[in-house]
């Protein structure tokens, strides 16, 4: 393990819950992220993969402090060794920590793409934005177009450019590649790699896990609001035998190039989580123990796994 002072962002025992109306005026808390641990070091790309609706985007919002008012965050967030509280989040987001949002509806519909890419911090010269757009294969006129005139992949690339134009130390890219062709996605990810080489850190939230395996240094696998496995990306490239958690293996096997075989069942609903291991209901190797209590995080072969049997 690296020293604490080398860690850019440390997340310890994070949980996020939403206060929702149940019946009439009674309210309930719905815990959507629980006991989450994650650390990010300067110079690395950490890919966050995993189930849709497992709280990956919420994690991004929690780090930036942009969750809606009915959300409660517990646990510890440390940025550069100091506690990341609401005031600091406000200070840092957009300058030190940048977000590439998931939905193209984050673009202001009434603002031209070029202006949005520049953001609040107008670049020194107009040169970087032009060359950046060219590298992302965006036609020159894109700068002058409104979001509704862009195709899905073009809008996505404009979103990516917003983060690349800042001097952020930490970039959180939430699904930056959908809608891009393979070549464009590789180019965009290559640019994140360049940022990492400059000592910045990138959290890459993605479903294009085959690309993530290629470009990331480490991969964290999410399931039902927590991390089930964190491992070097090389393990994911080697195949299921090198992976520690049955869910990670199932992800690998469901890739179209690896069999396209889905496992049965669905991720449990946040309001109705199993008592023990969150993956137990779908796990082919579950035992009595898994159903009764939540397995702790263990270190196995240079990775972390939340499973009694991961080896």
């Amino acid at each position: 393990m690296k020293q604490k002072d080398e860690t850019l962002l440390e997340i310890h025992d994070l949980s996020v819950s939403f206060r929702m109306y149940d019946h009439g005026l009674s309210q309930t808390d719905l815990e959507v992220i629980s006991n989450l641990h994650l650390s990010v070091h300067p110079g690395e790309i950490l890919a966050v993969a995993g189930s849709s609706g497992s709280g990956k985007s919420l994690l991004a919002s929690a780090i930036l402090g942009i969750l809606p008012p009915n959300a409660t965050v517990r646990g510890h967030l440390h940025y550069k060794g100091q506690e990341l509280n609401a005031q600091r989040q406000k200070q840092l987001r957009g300058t030190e920590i940048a977000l590439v949002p998931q939905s193209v509806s984050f673009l202001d519909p009434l603002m031209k793409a070029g202006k949005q890419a520049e953001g609040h911090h107008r670049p020194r010269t107009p040169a970087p934005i032009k060359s950046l757009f060219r590298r992302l294969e965006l036609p020159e006129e894109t700068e002058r177009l409104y979001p509704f005139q862009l195709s899905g992949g073009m809008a996505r690339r404009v979103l990516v450019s917003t983060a690349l134009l800042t001097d952020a130390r930490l970039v959180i890219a939430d699904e930056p590649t959908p809608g891009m062709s393979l070549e464009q996605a590789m180019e965009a990810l290559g640019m994140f790699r360049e940022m990492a080489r400059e000592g910045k850190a990138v959290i890459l939230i993605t479903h294009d896990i085959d690309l993530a395996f290629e470009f990331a240094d480490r991969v964290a696998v999410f399931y039902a609001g927590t991390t089930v496995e964190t491992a070097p990306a090389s393990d994911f490239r080697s195949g299921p035998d090198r992976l520690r958690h049955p869910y990670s293996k199932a992800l690998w096997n469901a890739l179209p190039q690896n069999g396209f075989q889905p496992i049965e069942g669905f991720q449990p609903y946040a309001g109705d989580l199993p008592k023990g291991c969150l993956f137990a209901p779908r796990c082919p190797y579950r035992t009595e123990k898994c159903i009764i209590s939540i397995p702790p995080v263990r270190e196995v072969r240079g990775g972390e796994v939340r499973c009694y049997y991961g080896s």
Partner: protein
Amino acid sequence: MALEAKNIFFRYRNKKPWILEDCTLRVEKGERLALFAPSGYGKTTLAMLLAGYLKPIKGQILLEDKPLPQKGICPVQLICQHPENAINPRWRLRRVLEEAGGIREDMLDAFGIETAWLSRFPRELSGGELQRFCVARAISSDADYLICDEISTMLDVITQAQIWNVILNEAEKHNTAVIAVTHNRHLAAKIAERTVELPDL
């Protein structure tokens, strides 16, 4: 029995270059087709033209040699790339499914849609969860042609495999044509019988 685009021309504004120029495509009923092109080449535009959301400037879209029907549920259903833009934000999800001819229990099960989600608003679900509603809605409408415009890019690979298995099963059962727009060649190889590159049309 086929859905045809006959020599269609399309651009969003006059005097701009054509996005689609003299484009012809014929999809037989029951066929499974994958459509490829780099980003910005008009894949989504072609999908919207085929489903009747846009009108070609020149040329025709024909369904069994007739123009697309103007009334009722369209037999060519488009499933969009961004589900959050394809669902009325002020409707609860129950109403979204009811609009397509009622809630089918087997669809809810097949897509893992929780009953609790039906009484929620779209912004309370994740993109992947919303997309399952969009696919369920398109399938329950008994369409003859399903156009899937990058429908699984926001889904995890397990859900992607599950949803595609349901779509392919339903398509097989009802002899529905599936036109899949995708960037993923591995996925296309699994789902399609024929592949078309858009710049070649």
